């Protein structure tokens, strides 16, 4: 038999640790690999085409029966609107909005449409403990108000700050967000209202894999027109709505620091630990506690028995 010396012991230990790490990593990557629905639909938004006409906002407002706007949809003063140093964002009265940017690289403004990006692996869905969210095979992330308890965890979880809460009806909780016109259009194979309204075809609708191909073709065949990146191809594990831009994405309000993998991957290990902590730990530690305190108890019982004995002896002696 080979003698186990210090060197071979360390070697073996290192090899085992490495193997365990590799196997573990492989396993966690595999469990996070959701291939999306291959026939799911998507939209590619081409910032170089958008002229800021706000037709998409108007169409969305009517399609989703949202409240009347404060100013008409052909009023372009909203592009100058700032709230706490931030441009307009989607809320319970508007599922989509267009913002104007003036990147110093180019001599004309760029417009960026904001709406739910319909993630392949949505963080809102992951975070919801009553399963109010569903990712449909058509690609939409939809929401069911009937089961929502109004905890608003989805609003915190969303990397794009999309879900909004209808504060006006706090006792009947309702999250308001773009649903890809799922009920009225998408499930019948029709494009959402905003896509249909866009005069410039800045929004191109199709299966996600096809619009991704279209985006790549545009980048390839018009060199110099676009930055070589499609926002949403890999961001947070991929989104159904993706963007093309002629300037770096951080210059037109995009968060370029979002992870390249689904948000759930960052919390998966923790989430796996929760049932263990809640179910195994109590029994385990109660067991440890009982085991650890058993000796003391035994000793106490022995002491008591001894005391009793001495007492009895004393009594006997007294009687005698």
């Amino acid at each position, binding site marked *: 038999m080979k003698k186990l010396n210090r060197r071979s012991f360390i070697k073996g230990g290192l090899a085992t640790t490495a193997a365990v790490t590799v196997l573990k990593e492989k396993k966690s990557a595999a469990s996070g690999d959701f291939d999306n629905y291959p026939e799911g639909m998507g939209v590619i938004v081409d910032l170089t085409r958008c002229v800021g006409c706000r037709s998409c906002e108007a169409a969305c407002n009517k399609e989703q029966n949202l*409240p009347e*706007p*404060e100013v008409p*949809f*052909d009023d372009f003063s*909203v592009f100058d609107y700032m709230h706490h140093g931030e441009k*307009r964002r989607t809320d319970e009265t508007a599922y989509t909005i267009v913002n104007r940017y003036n990147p110093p690289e180019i001599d004309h403004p760029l417009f960026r449409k904001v709406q739910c990006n319909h993630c392949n692996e949505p963080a809102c869905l992951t975070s919801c403990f009553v399963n109010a969210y569903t990712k449909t095979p058509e690609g939409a992330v939809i929401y069911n108000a009937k089961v929502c308890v109004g905890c608003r965890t989805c609003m915190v979880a969303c990397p794009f700050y999309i879900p909004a809460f209808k504060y006006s009806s706090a006792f009947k909780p309702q999250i308001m967000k773009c649903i890809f016109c799922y009920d009225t259009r998408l499930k019948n*194979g029709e494009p959402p209202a905003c896509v249909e309204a866009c005069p410039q075809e800045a929004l191109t609708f199709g299966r996600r894999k096809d619009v991704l191909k*279209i985006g790549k073709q545009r980048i390839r065949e018009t060199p110099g027109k676009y930055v070589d990146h499609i926002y949403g191809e890999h961001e947070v594990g991929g989104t159904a709505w993706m963007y093309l831009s002629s300037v770096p994405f951080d210059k037109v309000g995009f968060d370029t620091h979002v992870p390249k993998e689904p948000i759930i991957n960052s919390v998966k290990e923790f989430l796996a630990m929760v049932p263990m902590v809640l179910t195994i730990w109590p029994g385990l530690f109660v067991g440890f506690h009982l085991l650890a305190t058993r000796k003391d108890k035994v000793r106490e019982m022995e002491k008591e028995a001894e005391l009793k004995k001495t007492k009895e002896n004393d009594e006997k002696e007294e009687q005698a």
Partner: protein
Amino acid sequence: MQTRKKIMRTALALTTGAILFAPGHLFAMDASDAPETVTIDSLAKYYTPVEFDHLMHVGYASCEECHHHTTGVQVADPNCLRCHANTPEADEVSCVGCHAADRFNDTYLSTLDDPRIYHIDKPGLKGAYHLNCIGCHVIIEGPTGCQDCHAMTEAGEKLFNTGKHAPAGGTSSGAKH
């Protein structure tokens, strides 16, 4: 005598050949083939039809800038030239001949499965009009506002909450929009 006959025969053959195998652009369309005005009304719903002054626009752009390879004039875009360097005049030169009014319909989207299709990104009719018109108007500083080309209809005013349908203001919950 013999030589003269030979020359004549060769010349005749060359002329016939030239006529038979002439490149398309010898017979290409030009501005005189075009209508003076085109009424663009197939999509009119929120905006009134556009009376497009074709004759006037001929002075601003050559045929191939708007009609690509369909008029038989050699196309300018190097991407198109890869296949359409010698494409003759097409049967249909109007926008609607190639650009579908409902680009995103199911049938069209399923044709994209065919890996041989190059034109996977052909704009729909509305996209084709606006990309072509506004693209050029921005460069030569032509009109670019929506109502510079077509007035809004009643249905349009309703959609955009403007004109007769403008919000009363102040009471709406959509304060920022």
